[in-house]
């Protein structure tokens, strides 16, 4: 009978020398009390060492799942070739089944086998010759660690240390860049001070200097890629009449080196920023959606790690970064700060100063949720962050609308927007006015015109500013309805009053008079 024994260092196949002893299960342990005794009952037939940890990892994962790894298959095939009739004792019944199916090798698993395994395990060092115990221990440790990491799906792109380092580097780069640029400006300014005033942007300045070098070359060089047209003209003009000193070739070379550095660092900075954005999206997608990459990265860096940040309550997230102000206020019993790093989030930035505190609190509350979801959740989609952001934005809108005040009047009453009522305004053409024949005699018309005039002036004071119809319609309506005065007198009044109100109130009276004149003229025309 053969025994298959898996170790951290490799697969071992033993042959049982004395099968009779196996019958006495209870006293089997005696046979393994010393290495010599153990060697008498089993003999190492074949030991397949693992070449490296990857092989060992593959073997152990297959073992955990009860499957056959490639290595194991190879060994067993060799055995089948040699001793097909032998039975194989294995520790896992499931594995035995698989071996039987695939290789047609009969396996046994019984309490006797368990005892056997115990014995072999206790004497493993003595039984497997040629394997120093230190190596075995080392392999064991290495295998355990790699197996555990594999189990935990330790993925390197979920490490938030990258974020912390990247954001610190970004800040460092900015500082350095600023220093270098200031130095460059000052240094070159000795030679050509006007350029500093004309070209405001730092990177363009350096590119300009890099391209040209000495002031004399300005007129000959082409700066179209670096500068826009007008500025280029200015620069060239200024170069002619500059009051800077002359500098030698060597000096210019040094300045050019510095400009090279600046340009390189600027490019690297943009690259780093892109890298940071990618990492943030990979590690904490919901947080990125809520507050943006930079603010999110700063929060993580401030707390030390994403998990640490997740442990903070929302109130802490709100004022992370304002600790000095916070403790000062707490000590002197004053008002504590309302926002820390979260101030730089876009949602807080776009509100009025009055609402920044409220929004910062709301944003911090939702952000704390997204942080916990990112740090401790299994899913890695950004939908939760998007939902939360939507909620905060809705709240923000309500906040802003609530506070709008009326412009006219005292300015203290809150604006009231009327509730929208859908009024179906379908106007059909009234054909009753199509007749050109005078419908009423002259005299009555003049009287009514006078009546209308008085009524119009009265109504002008009473009617509110509610315009429904357009001016030309009103004009047309006016003409038409003059002829239908009996039925539509009231409407006419309103319309005329409305048309009287249409122009500004100061000219209202004037217009009514004008309209009176118009009416009279029209009446005359009709006549």
């Amino acid at each position, binding site marked *: 009978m053969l025994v298959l024994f898996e170790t951290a260092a490799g697969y071992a196949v033993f042959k049982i020398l004395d099968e009779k002893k196996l019958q006495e299960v209870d006293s089997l342990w005696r046979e393994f009390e010393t290495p010599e005794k153990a060697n008498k009952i089993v003999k190492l037939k074949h030991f397949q060492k693992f070449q490296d940890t990857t092989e060992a990892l593959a073997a152990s994962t297959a073992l955990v799942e009860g499957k056959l790894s490639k290595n194991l298959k190879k060994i067993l095939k060799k055995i089948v070739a040699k001793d097909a009739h032998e039975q194989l004792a294995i520790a896992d019944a499931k594995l035995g089944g698989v071996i039987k199916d695939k290789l047609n090798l009969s396996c046994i698993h019984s309490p006797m086998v368990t005892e056997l395994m115990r014995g072999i395990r206790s004497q493993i060092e003595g039984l497997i010759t040629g394997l120093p115990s230190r190596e075995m221990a080392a392999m064991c440790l290495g295998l355990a660690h790699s197996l*555990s990491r594999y189990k935990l799906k330790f993925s390197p792109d979920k490490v938030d240390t990258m974020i912390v380092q990247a954001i610190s580097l970004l800040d460092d780069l900015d500082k350095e860049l600023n220093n270098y640029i200031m130095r460059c400006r000052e240094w070159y300014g000795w030679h050509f001070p006007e350029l500093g005033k004309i070209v405001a942007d730092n990177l363009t300045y350096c590119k300009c200097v890099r391209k040209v070098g000495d002031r004399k070359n300005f007129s000959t060089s082409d700066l179209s890629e670096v500068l826009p047209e007008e500025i280029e003209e200015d620069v060239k003009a200024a170069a002619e009449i500059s009051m800077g000193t002359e500098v030698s070739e060597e000096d210019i070379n040094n300045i050019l080196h510095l400009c090279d550095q600046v340009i390189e660092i600027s490019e690297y900075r943009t690259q780093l920023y892109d890298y940071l954005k990618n990492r943030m999206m990979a590690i904490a997608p919901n947080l990125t959606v809520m507050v943006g990459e930079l603010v999110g990265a700063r929060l993580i860096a401030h707390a030390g790690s994403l998990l640490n940040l997740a442990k903070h309550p929302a109130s802490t997230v709100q004022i992370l970064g304002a600790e000095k102000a916070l403790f000062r206020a707490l000590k002197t019993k004053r008002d504590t700060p309302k926002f820390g790093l979260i101030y730089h989030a876009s949602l807080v930035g776009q509100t009025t100063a009055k609402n920044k505190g409220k929004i910062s609190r709301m944003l911090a509350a939702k952000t704390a949720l997204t942080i916990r979801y990112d740090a401790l959740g299994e899913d890695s989609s950004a939908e939760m962050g998007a939902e939360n952001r939507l909620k905060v934005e809705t709240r923000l809108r309500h906040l802003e609308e609530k506070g709008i005040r009326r412009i006219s009047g005292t300015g203290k009453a809150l604006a009231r927007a009327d509730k929208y009522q859908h009024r179906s305004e379908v106007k059909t053409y009234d054909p009753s006015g199509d007749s050109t024949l005078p419908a009423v005699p002259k005299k009555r018309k003049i009287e009514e015109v006078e009546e209308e005039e008085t009524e119009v002036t009265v109504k002008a004071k009473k009617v509110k500013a509610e315009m429904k119809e357009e001016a030309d319609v009103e004009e047309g309506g006016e003409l038409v309805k003059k002829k239908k005065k009996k039925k539509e007198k009231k409407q006419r009044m309103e319309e005329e009053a409305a048309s009287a109100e249409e122009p500004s109130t100061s000219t209202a009276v004037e217009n009514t008079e004008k309209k009176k004149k118009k009416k009279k003229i029209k009446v005359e025309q009709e006549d």
Partner: protein
Amino acid sequence: MRPGFSPRGGRGGFGDRGGGRGGFRGGRGGGFRSPGGNDGGFRGRGGGGGFRGRGGPGRGGRGGGGGRGGRGGFKGGKKVTVEPHRHEGVFICRGKEDALVTRNLVPGESVYGEKRISVEDGELKVEYRAWNPFRSKLAAAILGGIDQIHIKPGAKVLYLGAASGTTVSHVSDIVGPEGLVYAVEFSHRSGRDLINVAKKRTNIIPVIEDARHPHKYRMLIGMVDVIFADVAQPDQSRIVALNAHNFLKNGGHFVISIKANCIDSTAAPEAVFAAEVKKMQQENMKPQEQLTLEPYERDHAVVVGIYRPPPKQKK
């Protein structure tokens, strides 16, 4: 024989690392690591909670959850003496208040924010870590006066239910560089912390597997001398028995922590303990002593026994 020892403060007296078995205790902050080189480790801060500086690689954990109430004792710099305990590998630190300590295998590092004590031993500087009996069942058992823990320097220990590795680190201290601790833990979250502890201590072998199926991790484990089980499962006797059949040597010992509530919350604790003992006896595990963990835990007991005792020599 009890070493003179007064219990330490209230719960949450030691800085909490969070995670671990079922979430936080003592509520505040988390991820707190004592800064290196600070003699006596952490100082309790009053008032609005200490804010440990910003940024950098340091863990800027907010304030300390522990250290204020009930810490007393070790204000940094005071003179304390360390003497060995009856159990090998365990020590007692005597000062204004006494503490159970183990010798730090990795000097300068705190595993879960516990206090560290440095003592000059002639030329050598030796560092010890305080062992909290409220967090560790083994420490509670030692302080309760257990006769034998069987975990000694050079021993090979199979630790079932390792959680985040807080007690495992102390066991690793006791067994020293010659011994080995196989730490088995099924939870992934705790497993992550356990792996971090194992990175620093090479005598801990982390196994992220279910202890109910010892054949799944048979490749990693050799024969052990002691099994320590703190799994808090209703079928824990069976779990320990399975592991013992596979990995515990003849004449090896086991130390099992039983939580009465977990096995059967309706029965009386004594009845639960008795039932468990009976189950063990059926599996060829002979219990030798039983001890309750008052005043550190309620309705908990620790059972120590021997597995496959060698046959008595007839004289």
